[in-house]
């Protein structure tokens, strides 16, 4: 029927338009034609849905997003116009992301290095890998409940917001940030491990031939060469942390404003409670207490802008790396 290479086939206008010498879809069996039509519909429909979401939020953003919202703090008010902006949620998102990434990167990179470069005993390495897969598959509500159980323990009091009576709430930036690191962990781990496995063996051999030990090779040769993989993983991790709602709802409390605990400035902030953009959207949607949909839309637009920016960043890192080394960065982890 056709002896075209796949490359040529892709170039063939006949295949797409249905005109031509061979294999016009019009001559196929009807089942194949239906399947072909369905594939086109599904693909284009999905693009349309994505386009509709983006257009919808751009329109809402133009309608409701004002620069002043970004710089004013949330207020309690009965009217929607009096509820202030979302400076505190923005700061909350930033703090949580910082804590989550700072905790997740050492753990993820260390495990990835150990599994890719040492990995002995074999059963332990496999067990650790499965554990990370389990973390990746655990719903965020479950992680949130786990965090609540841990940080409500009495001796965790120093890390947590306390009620006036001394009861431990288990809620603070530290608690939420620690659990956020579990959300970011699998993405960073997978990106780093895949990067290490893609480093050609001769680079290690060259380092060994120069008399370097394994750990020196890792530090001086391998880690520098997988830098952009780690960066990709971190970016994916950040976008997961920014998008997570459940952990914040359970572990950061319900107040929209950041409230510190104690008088020490930095520590008090970390022990305090607050909100993030996601909980701001959640609280101001009709499902939450605030019910100020315009504010929810505005915050959602900002959230989407962040996610879009992070996506572009991943793409940019990938291209940059490909141009520099010829190795492609796996960006498929979602």
């Amino acid at each position, binding site marked *: 029927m056709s002896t075209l290479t796949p490359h040529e086939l892709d170039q063939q206008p006949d295949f797409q338009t249905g005109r031509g010498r061979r294999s016009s879809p019009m001559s196929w069996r009807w089942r194949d034609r239906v399947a072909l039509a369905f594939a086109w519909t599904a693909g284009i429909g999905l693009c349309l849905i994505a386009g509709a979401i983006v257009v919808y939020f751009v329109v809402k953003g133009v309608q409701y997003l004002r620069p002043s919202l970004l710089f004013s703090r949330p207020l309690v008010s009965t009217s929607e116009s009096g509820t202030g902006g979302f400076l505190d949620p923005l700061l909350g998102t930033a703090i949580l992301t910082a804590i989550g990434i700072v905790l997740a990167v050492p753990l993820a990179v260390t495990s990835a290095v150990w599994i890719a470069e040492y990995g002995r005993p074999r059963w332990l390495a496999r067990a650790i890998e499965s554990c990370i897969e389990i973390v990746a598959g655990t719903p965020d509500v479950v992680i949130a409940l786990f965090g609540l159980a841990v940080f409500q323990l009495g001796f965790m009091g120093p890390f947590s917001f306390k009620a006036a009576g001394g009861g431990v709430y288990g809620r603070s930036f530290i608690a939420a940030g620690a659990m956020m690191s579990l959300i970011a962990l699998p993405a960073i781990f997978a990106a780093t491990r895949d990067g290490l496995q893609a480093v050609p063996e001769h680079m290690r051999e060259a380092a060994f031939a120069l008399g370097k030990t394994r750990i020196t090779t890792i530090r001086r040769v391998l880690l520098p060469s997988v830098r952009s993989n780690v960066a990709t993983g971190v970016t994916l991790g950040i976008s997961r942390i920014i998008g997570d709602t459940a952990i914040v709802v359970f572990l950061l409390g319900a107040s929209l404003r950041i409230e510190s605990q104690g008088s020490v400035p930095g520590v008090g902030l970390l022990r305090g409670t607050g909100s993030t953009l996601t909980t701001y959207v959640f609280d101001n949607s009709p499902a939450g207490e605030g019910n100020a949909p315009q504010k929810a839309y505005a915050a959602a637009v900002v959230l989407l802008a962040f996610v879009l920016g992070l996506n572009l960043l991943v793409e940019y890192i990938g291209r940059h790396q490909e141009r520099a080394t010829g190795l492609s960065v796996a*960006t*498929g982890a979602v």
Partner: protein
Amino acid sequence: MLARLRNPWPDSRAERTLGAVSCLVGVIVVAMIAFVAVHAWPTFQHNGLSWLSSGESPESSFEKMQTAGVDPPASAYRLRAWPLLYGTLIVTGAAVVLAFGLSLFSSIFIVELAPERLRKLTIPVIRLLASVPSVVYGLIGLLVLVPFVGNHLITASEKDSVAATMQLTGASVVVAIVILTIMIAPIMIALMCEALAAVPGSWREGAIALGLNPLRAVMAVTVRAARPAIVAAVVLATARAVGEAIMISMVSGSRAARPNFDHGLLVFLYTPVRTFASAIVDFREGLSAPALGSSLYAMALLLLIGGLVLSVCGYLIKLPMRKYQARG
């Protein structure tokens, strides 16, 4: 001390240190299962396995638990969670089935059919859709789809038919399924596209040479060779769908309805629903009441175990497919 750290480590010590740090992940996972199980224990102690059976409505049980206070009597622990399990299964199942069909054909479209320019556009779009936060999807559902279903799709007679037991506002099974499908499809597509693209083009070319038309060749060779990765994609997407809490809690009306087809399939699709994950979010304020807290931890435990079973099932399904696997 610092000087010792700065000097190159002996290899054996480095290996042990890195290994020990990696083991921390294992410790965290074990601790997670242990903590959730310990907190879930009281409710199973009082209910046994009939926790999962049907019986009285969970809604009234939840109310009793909330009013029972800090030191609840044994009777307050009573819960028959079948409607919640049913809600979870039906919402997740329908969404996964729909998303699977959609994703498989879209991935074929993207990898094999789409013109080069369209493909370059689609892949970033899919990645973007996969990373949109669930609360944003929930917002769209709540402010766009729920009013649409409530005002235009549900007829007055349908509202009247169940008016005695519940109100149909539009927050319903069908909205939850639709949005969940749109949420998990991009995850599946991203993984499936990668898998399909990794199958050598010459395999498909061979099939075309044997007389299959290009679409058949893709279905018979490329998709078949990519089956293990497709299973992995479905497993991952199912895990996401089962655990989706915030979005479902926003759009589903939050009411554990008993499975009920008395008024036909359509009316069932318009009824509110509650899943395990969304129940945890809905009752977050009641976690401090021991009976309710324990019940919610039991649901979390079920979600955890469900996730484990899911990945084991995925592994077992993949085993016999290895034979024709294409490695990228």
